[in-house]
């Protein structure tokens, strides 16, 4: 699978571009303290509402309190991407656990878990998020967990479908004939074979978690000022949309770039890892 998948991935131009964008964003967030020209919370009332490129000290301009926009974008990226990745890990762990239990054990447990999934899917995620966010004090971790725990349902369905198909295969019967316990079969035999769809779902989930963080931060339930996130930068910019539009455009562009990057990466991985395309098996 390995060599062929990479060959197919490389042919996918958009996916390569997406992967590159994602890598750049991650690097920018990781090295923010070294790259950022200013302290993102430093106020400078003598330099409010500067346009981009107006002064070399503030490459992308300043906001209503004279804070450097580029620095805030970089630090905000740290927050947004951290939330995105922690939420994705939560989503994948929960979704994979529920999906594998439902798929492998079947019967009553399957019915119970899948009806629970249906119930969760009945509510639009944003409302679910806002209800929970109203009761949970917003910290980085709590926001990530809340996003993760309201978006695992699709993953559990994907994993369950994959397990249902995999568990009928001969090598699972062979593993049982060699004395493997159910836990071992689920973790050692089934899970690694379902890795491709889980990986694809994971990349797409980072994108949607970044978007979710922006929603709830924009609505004021997410990351709280003065800590910058792309979402609350948008909230700030709202009052000046007609006079200083770049304050909204810049974080908006960062979100768009991230979401598109992860989505293209996910699409590319899906095509590259699609088992029907695995010629070399």
């Amino acid at each position, binding site marked *: 699978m390995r060599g062929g998948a990479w060959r197919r991935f490389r042919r996918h131009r958009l996916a390569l571009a997406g992967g590159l964008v994602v890598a750049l964003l991650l690097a920018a967030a990781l090295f923010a303290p070294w790259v950022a020209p200013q302290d993102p919370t430093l106020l400078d009332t003598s330099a409010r509402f500067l346009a981009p490129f107006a002064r070399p000290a503030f490459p992308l301009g300043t906001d209503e309190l004279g804070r450097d926009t580029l620095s805030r974008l970089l630090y905000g990226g740290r927050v947004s991407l951290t939330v995105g990745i922690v939420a994705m890990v939560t989503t994948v762990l929960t979704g994979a656990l529920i999906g594998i239990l439902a798929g492998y054990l079947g019967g009553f447990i399957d019915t119970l878990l899948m009806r629970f999934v249906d119930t969760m899917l009945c509510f639009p995620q944003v409302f679910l998020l806002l209800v929970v966010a109203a009761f949970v004090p917003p910290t980085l971790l709590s926001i990530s967990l809340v996003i993760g725990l309201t978006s695992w349902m699709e993953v559990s369905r994907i994993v369950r479908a994959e397990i249902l198909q995999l568990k009928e295969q001969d090598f699972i019967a062979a593993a049982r*004939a060699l*004395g493997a316990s159910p836990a071992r079969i689920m973790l050692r035999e089934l899970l690694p074979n379902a890795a491709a769809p889980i990986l694809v779902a994971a990349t797409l989930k980072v994108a949607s978690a970044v978007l979710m963080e922006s929603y709830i931060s924009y609505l004021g339930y997410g990351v709280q000022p003065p800590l910058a996130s792309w979402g609350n930068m948008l909230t700030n910019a709202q009052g000046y949309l007609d006079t200083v539009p770049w304050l909204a455009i810049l974080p908006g562009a960062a979100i768009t770039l991230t979401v598109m990057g992860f989505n293209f990466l996910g699409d590319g991985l899906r095509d590259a890892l699609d088992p029907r395309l695995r010629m070399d098996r």
Partner: protein
Amino acid sequence: MPPAEAAPLLAVRELAVHIPDPPHLLRAVDGISFDLDRGETLGLVGESGSGKTMTAMALMRLLEPPLSRLPTGEVLLDGEDLMRLPEGAMAALRGHRLSMVFQEPMTSLNPVMRIGAQIAEPLRRHLGLFRAEAAARAEEMLRLVGLPDPARQARAWPHELSGGMRQRAMIAIALACRPALLIADEPTTALDVTVQAQILELLRELQRDMGTAVLLITHDLAVVEENAHRVAVMYAGRIVETGPVEAIFTAPRHPYTAGLLASLPRIREEPEPWLPEIPGMVPGAGDRPRGCAFAPRCTRVISGCVAEAPPLLGEPHAAACWNPLHD
């Protein structure tokens, strides 16, 4: 009481798998009994649907729910009834005391685990070997099953091996813990004829060296003739004839066995213009006749055949027939 050493390794008594399927009762396996001694090969022969694989799955207790609760009878391995064991204790025996090789080598290996790791797995689980020891034993097993360059093959992925090589790897996995009993369910059916001969030869060698008893399940009489010590012929969920290979192949007593042998192509000076066949079809597991299940297809049918099913009589060569041949 006979002395303990005389007790067979495996004693199957009245093993049955009756599947309720209202309004029918599917008698997939219908009360079969046989013994298997240490180091012996018993060929279990029959057409598709005769209950061979169901028998193997019931012996290994590998039937999935809802079928898993259905088997009845006794399966004594060294005097211990496997049917009464809790699932955990049974899992500890699988791959350790009794093991199984499946029909499809192409799909029976985990595609995302290296060959060596798959052989090492039962060694670590059942014998408690550490990683390095298990890896060394895995390579040793690969050498035993005749794969060239075992160190390299241990690091190979299943898709890098051919069908024959994969079946060798499967055998290495199944025999890694030196089980007393190996169930081989059509181990060569999916392979080319030349590879088939090599794999059977390998099984014979390993059996001789390790003293493993083999239950060889196949529909291929030629395979049985060359590889088994004794034969049990299954028809419609029952054993209709059993005995030493030579006796059955030279003087079959059940008309079904005789029919099977007659339909086997042989190389002769004067080939027959056509190959004899047995008319009709195996009755479905739900609509077995009350008497002998073979009676509707049998040329030697007498009045008693349709009234009552014949018992399996004779020692060591037994046949379940009211009107047997070679009497």
